Structure formats: structure tokens, C-alpha cells
């Protein structure tokens, strides 16, 4: 091997070693890297019980309830498998809507209610003009009514 090939082998082996080390470290700290727990984790008891945690998932449609006299809201966070009811007093972010992603920080109360101190909205990677969103929504409704998509059948 020429000195240059030796140096190349050294650099390549070093990169592989560092890559592997990073992989194992990140794997070991997987729970620490996760920003939030899913409702399934919380219900199964995988999340710490008496510590502040973040709970993430989708706000279940039709689950949002506002108290008439103050800013307290209740809503259900679901990952389509399990559900956790969240209680939060404060102003919700603009993007907070039913059927969309949310990350709430807080802790579980003994009666199974998640008492949130902070609620963050999680938006998805879809971007489109409102007209397109309207058209998609209408198409979905048509499909739900059994008419099927336009031109879908001969």
C-alpha cells in the first residue's frame, strides 16, 4: 500500500467506526431523543409516571370541549390505537384544530387525566392553496356518499 492508500484506508475506517459508535449511542438513548410519548406508551405505562412528560398525537375529532367560564379546555389525544384525555388552561396555538397533530407537555394526574402546562401544534408536511384543500374535501365527501370519484368508473 502506498502512503496515500494507507491514509485513505485510515480515513474510511475512521468514518465507519464513528458512524457505528454514533448509531449505538443514539440507539441506547432512543427514549431520550424522542420528543414525546404516544398515547399507547402512556396507557401501557412506558412513560414516567410522576414526571413532566410530553404527549403527542392527533386531536380526536369532536373531542374538544371548552369550559364556559374560563380558558380551560379538554380534548382527547389519540394515536388511533389508544386515547388520553388532556386538560389545559391557556391559549391554544393558532394551528390547533381537531384532527391535527399536537404535542402537550405536562403530567398524568391520578385520575387518568393528562394535566398539560403547554400545548404545541404539530403541522404536517402538506402545503397547498385553500382551493385545492376545498376540492379535496369535497371529493372526499362525494366518495363518502358513495358516488365515487369523478370518472372513476366506466
Amino acid at each position, binding site marked *: 500500500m502506498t502512503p496515500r492508500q494507507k491514509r485513505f484506508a485510515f480515513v474510511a475506517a475512521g*468514518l465507519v467506526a464513528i458512524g457505528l459508535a454514533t448509531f449505538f449511542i443514539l440507539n441506547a438513548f432512543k427514549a431520550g431523543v424522542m420528543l414525546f410519548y404516544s398515547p399507547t406508551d402512556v396507557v401501557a405505562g412506558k412513560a414516567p409516571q410522576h414526571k413532566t412528560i410530553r404527549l403527542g398525537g392527533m386531536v380526536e375529532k369532536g373531542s374538544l370541549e371548552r369550559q364556559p367560564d374560563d380558558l380551560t379546555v379538554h380534548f382527547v389525544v389519540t394515536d388511533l390505537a389508544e386515547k388520553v384525555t388532556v386538560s389545559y388552561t391557556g391559549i*391554544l396555538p393558532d394551528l390547533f384544530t381537531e384532527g391535527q397533530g399536537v404535542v402537550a407537555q405536562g403530567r398524568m394526574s391520578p385520575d387518568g387525566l393528562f394535566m398539560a402546562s403547554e400545548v404545541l401544534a404539530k403541522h404536517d*408536511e402538506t402545503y397547498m392553496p385553500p382551493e385545492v384543500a376545498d376540492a379535496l374535501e369535497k371529493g372526499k365527501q362525494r366518495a363518502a356518499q358513495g358516488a365515487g370519484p369523478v370518472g372513476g368508473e366506466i
Partner: protein
Amino acid sequence: MSSGGPNWFKYASPMAFYPLAGRLIPWFAVPAVVLTAIGLYMTFFVAPVDYRQGDAYRIMFIHVPAAWMSMWLYICMAVYAALGLVVRTRLSSMMAQAIAPTGAMFTFIALWTGAFWGKPMWGAWWVWDARLTSELILLFLYIGVMALRAAIDDTRRADRASGLLALVGVVNVPIIYYSVQWWNTLHQGASISMTAAPTMSRIMLWTLLVMTFAFWAHAFVTSLMRVRGIILERERHAEWVAEMVDETK
């Protein structure tokens, strides 16, 4: 390399690359200015509002290209650093040195615009999720590479030390890119990938691409200008620099 055609290896020499870089700069400077103007016009006047995020999503047209450039320039810097370590061409280390400040600037822009986007959309300027944290580490890596180089007076040792740090740090780039897939993050996933159709309307996609090429051209211009300065500084005792200075007198 006795066959016909230009001998590209000749441009590995700083003396041959200096005038070439000078000739290349206008070819990137003009697209950088024109594409930035077109891209910003499309950002603010052509691209439609988003169905959920309204006008605030327009930050994306600065944020996403800056974030892409921050990762891409780091890879470029690491490749040059590796060439400098393995092949020991002087120009490679100079290019690695020249790219770093531009990469750091794009990383900062990505983090800064991301905070501006996060506050109205998520409800928080900053969250310690995997995407944001790994991008912050990228900024520290850029700064670390530059600081390590600046701390060592001997140029060859500085090249080697900072090149090694740049190479070690390259593991962070796939972590940034895949963080939104591997872990739960507040940051949304990728809208554009090589394996699936983009999840945004076509005009938004075009605006994003125009801005990306504008930023890329900007990176070329600043890196080439900077490397010319580095070449002159490092070769100041060389005969060709003295001759060139004499000619311009």
C-alpha cells in the same frame, strides 16, 4: 493523462485555480442575483397562501433552501477536508476553509427563520426535538471547525486538525436529515424526497427550487471569492503572486 482534452488536474494547483475561480465568479454571481429576485417575487406575490398556515408558511421558501444548503455545504466541506487529508492537495484544504463560513451562515439562517416560523405555527420559538437540536449541533460544528483552524498558527497542522473535525462531524448530516423519520419530533417530515411525490402544490415547489438554486449560486460566489483570498494569503511568498502584483502596479 497523456490523452487529448484539457488536463483537469492542473486546476488542483492554487496557481492555476486562482484565475479560473476569478473567471467563474460572474457565471454564478449573475444567476445568484437574478434567481434571488425571481424567487423572492414568487415567494411573496406568486405562491398562493397555504390552506392551514396562511401567509406565515412563506418563511419556508427561505428556511428550507437554507437548511438544505447548510447540510450540503457541510458535505462539500468534509469531502474537501478528506481530499486534503488523503491526497494532500493544498487547494482542497483551502476550499474546505473557504466553504465553512458560508455553511455556518446558512445554518444560522435556517435556525433563525425556523424560530420565526415555529412561534406562530407551533406556539414555541424553540423545542429540543431531534431535528432542531441536530441542526444546532451543525452550527457548533461549523464554528468549531473554523475556530480550531484559527487557533493553530501552522497552516498544515491547522488544515489537518480542522479537516479531521470536519470529517468526524459528517455523521451529523444523516442524523439531521433522517431525524424526523427516526424519532418523534415536533418538526414536520420532509415534503420533498427522492422516493415519493412532493406533498406541496407545483407553484410552491417551483418557488422552493428557484430559491434553492439562488442560494446555491450564492454559495459558489462567496466560496470562490473567499478561496481566492486564501490562495493569495497562503501563497504570498510564491513567485507567481509577486509577478501578478508587479503586473497590476
